[in-house]
């Protein structure tokens, strides 16, 4: 199995930050709905809610993946950190939100080419010669899907409102 990073470095993926008033429930439900429509498998790896009289804190970690074919899988690690949350009206909360989307392409996710050194060597050859352009196309496609996710988020935050 090989993980190919998609998107700009140096750290993990794409970052969205918001400080103000926003509809958190709508954000989460719209994202889940989109992942479902795109036939992504959704796994909630972490959900931490710490209430406090000074403002609640929520940490979420999602793993979203989709198998493209027997060799390629798209994966997005999505992390939310929302702090100082307080109610701010109907369906709205005020607080600080930081969302990080880390997209990756997983090659040979079933490790079919791992067992022997010869198979591993063939896999490297295959990847560097035959599959190179195909990987590039997959990178572009996954990047554009991440862009769509980010547009959904920005739409909910009503950027430039």
């Amino acid at each position: 199995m090989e993980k190919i990073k998609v998107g700009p470095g140096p750290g993990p993926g794409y970052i969205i930050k918001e400080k103000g008033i926003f509809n958190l429930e709508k954000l989460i439900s719209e994202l889940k709905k989109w992942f479902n429509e795109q036939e992504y498998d959704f796994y909630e790896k972490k959900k931490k809610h710490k209430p406090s009289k000074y403002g609640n804190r929520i940490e979420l970690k999602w793993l979203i993946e989709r198998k493209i074919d027997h060799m390629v899988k798209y994966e997005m690690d999505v992390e939310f950190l929302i702090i100082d949350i307080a109610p701010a009206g109907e369906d709205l909360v005020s607080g600080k939100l930081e969302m990080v989307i880390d997209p990756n392409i997983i090659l040979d996710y079933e490790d079919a080419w791992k067992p022997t050194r010869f198979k591993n060597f063939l896999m490297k050859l295959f990847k560097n010669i035959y599959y190179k352009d195909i990987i590039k196309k997959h990178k572009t496609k996954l990047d554009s899907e991440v862009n769509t996710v980010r547009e959904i988020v920005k739409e909910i935050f009503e950027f430039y409102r």
Partner: protein
Amino acid sequence: MVNVDIVEKGLVVQKKAKFNMVELYKSLKSWFDLHDYEFQEREYGEEATDKKTAKIGWMGRKDVNEYVSYRLPISITLKNYETIKTKQGNVVEGDITVKIGANVRSDYENKWESAPIMHFFRSVFDRIIASDKTQKYEKELKKDVHDIFHRTKSFLNLQKFN
């Protein structure tokens, strides 16, 4: 590890302006598309409290060949801005700072990092054997960065709203 040669540290446009942010985005994105750069929005942050602030990070990337890649990092900071409705649509008015850098990356796929001696040979190659080509790449990128810089300046200067 990739080798980074800085061509421009940061060309800065800073002014108090009234402009359509969506049009600025489209204008710069179309420049990237025209010049075959891949466009990525690395970071976007907004503080929508009493004084609004936004910070956006973009990256333009162009792989010239298997060894050399151009990068144009752009950072946009909007301070104390507000959104105003005009006849031409929603515009933002505030202090905008646009900083555009440029760097040439060689061996961006890390093919020459398997051993220290390979890294050494690569550096010798860049410095001595391919120095003319390196200068050509730097010149080309410098032209691109100045082009996008002037485009940004023109956009901010020419935007007029009622």
